[in-house]
């Protein structure tokens, strides 16, 4: 019987009512009295020297209040990078300045050059068009390998080359891996591209700066996944505003997927401009602007080698990747191809020796940073593709080859050769579950039916692991993070027993307003409706690191549990006093405190009232009030894993791929709200199918973005996708957080791309196109057709 309340219940989302009636409050819905409008003049060339910038005529145009250029930011810092990677030789990465507005050079199409503030957006836009910009175009740096050649044009003149870092992991294993590959019974090699993507949350970015001269207080309303992080980065490193004079509010945010983690130039510019103009300043990104100014994702070029022994056991993996950083280092960019990628190269398998080399490269493109999965999709894709290729070369069933090499349930906790320790898992269970869900035994009959209809049917298998609950601070600090990655929660119990939970995590579609109360309600035995969540405002919530890396429930939820435990402990003391009993005898059940073995009890609301109206209260032992805060910093990442299987049909005449069935069997540990978890997987899988079949962020050789709108960048639409069949009944709870949860936000985007590509390759091989060993994503009809007929 499904639960209808508390942990494990598919409670309907309370936030839906405002979204369904048009009452959501997104950043662009905020309009402040006296508001002005900002428009950014952006570079239309990928690389060039700014010879002159004439703003005089523009500044005299109607309605124009202020034009800002790099000169206005001379006294402040550049946009900071939050992660420093150390290279193979122990040297820090090359870290160029990332100016708020271009200084002397433009380095990618979309690089902001000037900001115009005017009474209306139209006036700001008109004035921007009147700014006289004289730019001498320079040779562009686009291809990563040629960017590293001697004498290559440099994106940053003050760096020694376009190499950000050359990272080796684990460097001590390098020679042993080379040796194992040399001596292997079989080596499968695969070269592939992990295609550049644009996250494309449906709400474009918006920033509204406001300044109160009387109190010297700044407020920034922004579309952020982590307002406290923005306050810290912008306040401390860019504008020099102390935290108590800077409030950052991220209200309803229309999707993030990683791209709203970072501190962007427009946020700092609107904050500063509001002070200079003495008026609120609003900037709303257009979608076209988003394509050139939101951080992009992925963009790896990789060669992976998998060594196997005569029994088909994996003996070593060597992988070399070129990772595109774009023109500047976005907030967390250096960590994505390294610590969020290299550490996952063991996958679900017992491969004893692994060496990962990553060369991060500057190019004249928009900066690249985390996008849903962030490094883990890149690791999973190459691993699951090379395993599939090995299975084909060795004529082994791909499921069986995985089973032979899976870490077995009894081997947990399992320390991988790439520096992480998986706490729990059961990969045989998830693979078996997915094979059952897709009815693998019936595949041949379905393939025959497809063939009769002139279509080529294929079955694709992929398994994945990810490291989620991004933390723990001491570990990420060793790895180069310049911030802590704990999470915070304050549980504020009000006098009549209702509760406000203040969390540093942020909901931008995940449904925290519904799931967090489920947890607290379960712990206290009270109704979910008595509990509300407060998030997204640095003036209200304790310092927290926000939401990304599937960390909300695992880290933020755990903080909330710890704070609620403190509440229970204190409330029991109050109840013991009211019941004239020993605290040790007090039990909390169904929203009432009782004395064990008696019928004496006191209701939740009586205890909370006593805390705030302490007429009869143990004042000598405890303070009045009932409000507790916890900061939770876990001891390890969490490790969700799962099997993603799909069946596709390829039209041999056109190369078009249709996804007919998609199943996902995930182990997310314990699940708070199954309905929401299903939804997270659906969305992730859709993005993964998008990457595999449709989406490609493409530049031409001059650095012009070819896919700069929804006319050119193929977003998955309803008729591109099937119904999904997803399951999370295989549960091995996380052992190191109080809820036993692992996180579910990114899984779908990680596991699905290799499943799709493996299925297409399978379909082609079954049809005799055995020369096709790989097709780079997206598998568009033209690419598939060309591969078949090549």
């Amino acid at each position, binding site marked *: 019987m499904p639960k209808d309340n508390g942990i494990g219940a598919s409670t*309907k*989302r309370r*936030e*839906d*009512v*405002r*979204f*369904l*009636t*048009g*009452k*959501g*409050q*997104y950043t*662009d*819905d905020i309009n402040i009295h006296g508001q002005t409008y900002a428009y950014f003049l952006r570079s239309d060339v990928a690389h060039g020297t700014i010879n002159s910038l004439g703003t005089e005529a523009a500044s005299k145009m109607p309605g124009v209040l202020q034009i800002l250029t790099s000169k206005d930011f001379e006294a402040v810092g550049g946009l900071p990078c939050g992660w420093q990677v150390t290279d193979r030789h122990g040297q820090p990465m090359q870290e160029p300045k990332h100016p708020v507005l271009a200084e002397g050079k433009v380095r990618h199409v979309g690089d902001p050059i000037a900001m115009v503030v005017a009474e209306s957006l*139209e006036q700001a836009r008109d004035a921007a068009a009147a700014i006289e910009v004289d730019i001498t175009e320079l040779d562009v740096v686009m291809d990563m390998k040629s960017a590293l050649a001697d004498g290559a044009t440099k994106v940053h003149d003050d760096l020694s080359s376009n190499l950000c870092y050359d990272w080796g992991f684990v460097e001590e294993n390098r020679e042993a891996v080379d040796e194992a590959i040399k001596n292997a019974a079989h080596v499968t090699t695969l070269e592939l591209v992990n295609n550049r993507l644009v996250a*494309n*949350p*449906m*709400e*474009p970015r918006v920033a509204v700066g406001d300044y109160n001269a009387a109190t010297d207080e700044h407020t920034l309303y922004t579309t952020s996944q982590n307002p406290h992080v923005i306050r810290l980065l912008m306040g401390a490193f860019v504008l020099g505003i102390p935290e108590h004079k800077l409030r950052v509010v991220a209200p*309803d*945010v*229309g*999707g993030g*997927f990683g791209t709203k983690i970072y501190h962007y130039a427009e946020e700092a510019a609107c904050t500063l401009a509001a002070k200079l103009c003495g008026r609120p300043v609003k900037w709303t990104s*257009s*979608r*076209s602007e988003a394509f050139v100014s939101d951080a992009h994702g992925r963009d790896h070029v990789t060669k992976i080698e998998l060594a196997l022994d005569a029994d088909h056991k994996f003996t070593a993996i060597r992988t070399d990747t070129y990772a595109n950083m774009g023109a500047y280092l976005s907030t967390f960019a250096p960590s994505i191809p390294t610590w969020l990628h290299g550490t996952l190269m063991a996958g679900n398998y017992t491969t004893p020796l692994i060496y990962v080399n990553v060369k991060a490269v500057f190019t004249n493109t928009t900066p690249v940073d985390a996008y849903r999965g962030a490094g883990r999709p890149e690791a999973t894709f190459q691993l699951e593709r090379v395993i599939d290729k090995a299975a084909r070369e060795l004529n082994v069933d791909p499921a069986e080859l995985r089973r032979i090499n899976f870490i077995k349930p009894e081997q947990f906790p399992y320390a991988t050769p790439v520096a992480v320790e998986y706490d729990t898992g059961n990969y045989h269970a998830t693979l078996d579950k997915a094979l059952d869900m897709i009815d693998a035994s019936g595949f041949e009959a379905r393939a025959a039916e497809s063939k009769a209809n002139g279509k080529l049917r294929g079955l694709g298998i992929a398994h994945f692991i990810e490291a989620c609950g991004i933390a723990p601070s001491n570990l990420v600090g060793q790895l180069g993070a310049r911030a802590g990655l704990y999470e915070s929660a304050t549980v504020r119990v009000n006098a009549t027993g209702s509760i406000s939970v203040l969390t540093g995590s942020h909901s*931008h*579609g*995940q*449904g925290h307003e519904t799931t967090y109360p489920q947890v607290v309600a379960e712990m206290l035995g009270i109704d979910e409706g008595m509990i509300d969540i407060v998030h997204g405002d640095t003036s209200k919530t304790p310092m927290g690191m926000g939401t990304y890396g599937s960390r909300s429930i695992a880290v933020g939820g755990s903080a909330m549990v710890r704070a609620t435990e403190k509440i229970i402990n204190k409330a029991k003391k109050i109840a013991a006093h009211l019941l004239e009993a020993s605290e040790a005898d007090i039990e909390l059940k169904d929203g009432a405190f009782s004395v064990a073995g008696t019928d004496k009890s006191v209701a939740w609301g009586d205890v909370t009232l006593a805390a705030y109206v302490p007429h009869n209260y143990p004042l000598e032992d405890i303070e009045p009030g009932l409000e507790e805060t916890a900061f939770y910093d876990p001891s390890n990442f969490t490790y969700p894993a799962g099997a993603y299987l799909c069946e596709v049909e390829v039209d041999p005449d056109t190369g078009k791929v249709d996804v007919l069935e998609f199943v996902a069997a995930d182990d997310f540990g314990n699940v708070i709200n*199954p*309905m*929401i978890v*299903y*939804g997270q997987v*659906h*969305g*992730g*899988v*859709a*993005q993964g199918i998008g990457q595999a079949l449709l989406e490609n962020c493409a530049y031409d050789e001059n650095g012009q973005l070819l896919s700069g*709108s*929804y*006319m050119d960048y193929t*977003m*998955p*639409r*309803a*008729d591109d*996708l099937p*119904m*999904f*069949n*997803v*399951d999370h009944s295989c549960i091995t709870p996380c052992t190191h957080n109080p809820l036993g949860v692992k996180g579910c936000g990114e899984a*779908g985007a990680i596991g699905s791309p290799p499943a799709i590509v493996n299925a297409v390759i399978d379909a082609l091989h079954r049809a005799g196109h055995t020369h096709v060993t790989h097709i780079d994503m997206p598998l568009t009809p033209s690419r598939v057709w060309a591969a078949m007929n090549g």
Partner: protein
Amino acid sequence: MTSVTMTVNGKPVSGDVEGRTLLVQFLREDQKLTGTHVGCDTSQCGACQVHVNGKAVKSCTMLALEADGAEVTTIEGMANADGSLSVIQQAFQDHHGLQCGFCTPGMVMTAAALLKENPKPTEADIRHYLEGNICRCTGYHNIVKAILAASGQDVAQIAAE
């Protein structure tokens, strides 16, 4: 500036607009009806979908002046008279047909237009009809399910979790 008058969610409204003012700007900025969203600038995403004289229209694709004299319905006008969720809105909540909520107003407006034209659509009908609405969160699974449910069809048999 030119004066326009129209009926929005049953109420007569008027305002002065420039020739280039889009209907969505008039609704969001003049009428403060911010439930209608702007997600792109190429008439692709459908977040700005409203009904004009009973037909689904992308309000970023129509000038405010073109709507002079029209009956316009936005997401703010879709709930029942007592403020409770309409059948379609309720189905979206029941079947988790929204996550971040940004595309949702457009999805609801499109769903309403579909069910008016085709009261018992198939899954394929729904997916085809949603071609002008992009959602990045849900993978459409639960949107399709919600629309099927809103049409009174049994979704337990049609859609897996």
